[in-house]
């Protein structure tokens, strides 16, 4: 019962003991607001009290053969605290000062807590023993490496780490930190956005699940090949959360921390760059094609020019010269005028681009027949032609027959007007 009262009383005095402890720490110039905070103190105080509780309850075993072992067990929470402190960058001297002061403060209070406590000396001796064994273990273990914690320590964030962390998170390139299990242990905001994954989803994911197979195996090969500090680039295809793929450039660097290997990956989404590259390639190809087309066009223009000249020469020979001869032979002025009109149109058409065909057969037609043709071409019916030329229907029909014969249309199922539409008269 007395021990319970002792423990109870000490717990009730926690605030006082804290103040006393703080005063002594300040006096020894060890005050550091980051490390001597109330919360940590409270936890460590609870640990010491728990150890004290256990000593007080088992007075018999204090001199037993197992006592060293027991002490170690009792000191365990404090040893844990030591490791915690070490991870936060506490140095050994400071840590021991912290606890020695704490234990001394508690000891000082103990006699006053329960005035008539039997075995008080014994309990105090045991507490000392616990403190000593803790000290031994802590000193011995201070430098020892704890592989299961190293990762955590490496990534533990103090103030400057926090600043670094903030920079890391906000960098405009995707950054992933991968451990030996290919697990992503850190990812920044941009990396999350690149893959469309929330931070909670990307951390803990296998890096290979974010890449297409060939890229994944390439990366894994790089992981095994590169030495610390070395850098490699890879162009890979990555997977967005909805299964869409995108091209990316990955820069891999290896950094070793506390005997473990980590790879940092800088990931750049190349979708835009690839798109621009493609656009450039397309444009280049288009220009080349255009160049080719232009060459062809130039050639064909040259060809056309030659053809044109040839055709003009041919036309002159086949159409104009016979016409001139006919004019020469024609005695009547009106007949000559008619032939001259044809020649004139043919000359005009030579320069007008040959939209309509010049038909040498037309020159075979008589003046009246040409007149009839013109009317037909203008869309006149047989009756209209009769009226316009003041000819009988039969005469017009005869003219039509002759025209068809001279134009080589006899027996053809071709409407005379249709034939004439494309021809120059």
């Amino acid at each position, binding site marked *: 019962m007395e021990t319970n009262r002792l423990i109870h009383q000490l717990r009730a005095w926690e605030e006082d003991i804290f103040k006393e402890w703080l005063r002594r720490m300040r006096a020894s110039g060890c005050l550091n607001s980051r490390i001597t905070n109330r919360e940590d103190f409270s936890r460590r105080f609870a640990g010491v009290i728990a150890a004290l509780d256990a000593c007080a309850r088992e007075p018999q075993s204090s001199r037993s053969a197992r006592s060293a072992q027991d002490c170690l067990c009792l000191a365990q929470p404090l040893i844990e605290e030591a490791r915690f402190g070490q991870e936060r960058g506490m140095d050994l001297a400071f840590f021991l000062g912290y606890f020695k002061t704490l234990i001394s403060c508690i000891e000082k209070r103990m006699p006053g807590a329960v005035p008539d406590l039997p075995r008080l000396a014994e309990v105090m001796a045991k507490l000392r023993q616990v403190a000593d064994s803790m000290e031994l273990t802590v000193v011995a273990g201070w430098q020892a490496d704890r592989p299961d914690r190293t990762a955590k320590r490496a990534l533990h964030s103090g103030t400057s780490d926090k600043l670094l962390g903030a920079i890391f998170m906000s960098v405009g390139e995707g950054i992933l930190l991968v451990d030996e299990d290919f697990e992503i242990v850190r990812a920044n905001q941009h990396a999350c956005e690149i893959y469309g994954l*929330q931070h909670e989803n990307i951390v803990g994911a296998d890096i290979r699940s974010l890449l297409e197979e060939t890229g994944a195996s390439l990366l894994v090969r790089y992981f095994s090949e590169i030495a610390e500090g070395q850098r490699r680039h890879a162009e890979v295809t990555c997977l967005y*959360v909805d299964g869409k793929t995108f091209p990316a450039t990955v820069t891999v660097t290896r950094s070793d921390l506390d005997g473990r290997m980590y790879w940092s990956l800088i990931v750049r989404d190349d979708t835009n760059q690839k798109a621009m590259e493609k656009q450039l390639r397309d444009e280049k190809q288009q220009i080349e094609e255009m160049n080719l087309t232009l060459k062809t066009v130039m050639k064909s223009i040259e060809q056309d020019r030659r053809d044109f000249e040839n055709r003009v020469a041919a036309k002159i020979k086949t159409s104009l010269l016979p016409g001139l001869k006919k004019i020469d032979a024609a005695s009547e002025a009106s007949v000559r005028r008619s032939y001259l009109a044809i020649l004139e149109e043919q000359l005009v058409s030579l320069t007008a681009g040959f939209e309509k065909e010049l038909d040498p057969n037309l020159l075979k037609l008589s003046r009246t027949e040409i007149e009839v043709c013109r009317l037909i071409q203008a869309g006149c019916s047989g009756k209209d032609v009769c009226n316009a030329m003041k000819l009988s229907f039969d005469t017009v029909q005869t003219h039509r027959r002759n025209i068809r014969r001279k134009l080589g249309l006899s027996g053809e199922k071709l409407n005379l007007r249709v034939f004439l539409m494309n021809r120059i008269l």
Partner: protein
Amino acid sequence: MWNEEYDVVIIGSGFAGLAAAIEARKLCSSVIVLEKMAVPGGNSTISGGLFAAAGSRLQARENIEDSPELMLSDMLAAGCNFNHRELARIVAERSAETLLWTIDDLGVKYKSELSHLGGHSVPRTYNTENTSGAGIVRPMLVRCREMDIPIRLKTFLAKLIIDADGDMEGVEIREDYIFPNRESGVAKRIRAKQAVILATGGFGQDKEFRAIQNPMLTEDIECTNHRGATAESLICALQAGATPVQLSMIQLGPWASRDEEGFGVGSMFSMLAGFPYGILIDLRTGERFVNEQADRKLLVDAMLSSGRESIAIVDEMGVRHASTLEQCLKRGVVRKFNTIEELAIANQAPLAPLQATVASYNAVIEQGRDDRFGKPIPRDLEPLTHPPFYCIRLISKVHHCMGGIRVNPKAQVIRIDSNQPIGRFYAAGEIVGGVHGASRLGSNAIPECLVFGRIAGANAASEPSRSSL
């Protein structure tokens, strides 16, 4: 006046929003999903991927008798009958068919074992293969891509726009928005020819808003949600005339780890192994204090009372059910000890009472006797006798908002003044209030979101189309 026009406009890209999009797109030609964050999926994708279904294939295989009525009665019991019963019934009734839809239509992969979560009468919880809601969200995102449904990220809902007849006509948004800067982005207006669906989730991360609803939820209480789970869209809906329901009913999760932020990997460890197969003790006394399989509200109330420091302890047998164990150990969220003694020392727990607690708990299980806290003793529950032992330090974190806006069974949002639906306005998912009453049972959120998301999507796309501008 309008910059763009779609048949159906959906706000939010979680379970409810994506389910709505997929159903709507089957019936109309243009659907757009707007998401304010830079990545899709919200809380859904970081959730544990637990899906409760009454009358599933795995239940049939295990000869577990279950029915929508039983699921409904579990929901009402946990919800203290605050539930809007007709909505809760729809979730229970459609849970199994919706589960099948995810398997047969979306191709979601689940583990072959059912889990028994606290507050459920029988094991009825499916686990996604990767122990994450991403196991459902990803196939949905793939489907959206295949169906040509754009998901526009970094797009913030600034205002819901009502037309002259009082119907929902569209939304004012900020494009290229950078969370949480309200001034960022460019204002635009998108018109909905058929309807708008609000599927924006809860407000667990909105410390200011949640403290207004429940002043006990002070700023220092952590939250399992993603950063974007804030209240702006709820406020937009209220401005548009929606009816608020039970906004103060905000659930804390009892299973989250003290040693990591947010939902983390520890929550699933507690849910799948720590609580069903282990014990929950108060570090100060070394004793149990509650039925570990109670619903979340009872657990949290017990854990928060008289400043308890809770840890869950489970042995090698029980830990086999914890699919996130490896990650938990790697991140130091779960610690492993060869003996109960070592565990007690490391956690500064009084050894003798703890040993006594374990012994009496084991006796209860071995004898199949009634547990004094009322923990159900299923056949596969083993005593804690197989070292090593694992423990997780627990802290309650804000997890789910049971409250929200009121909808009818068609998922139409109900106007506060007329008690009639607001035309062309639907809502689904955590933004909706009343389904779960005072406390949501674990693994009931996914069926709720998917069931009502699909209802909202189908009904929204069946609205008569307005003429184009």
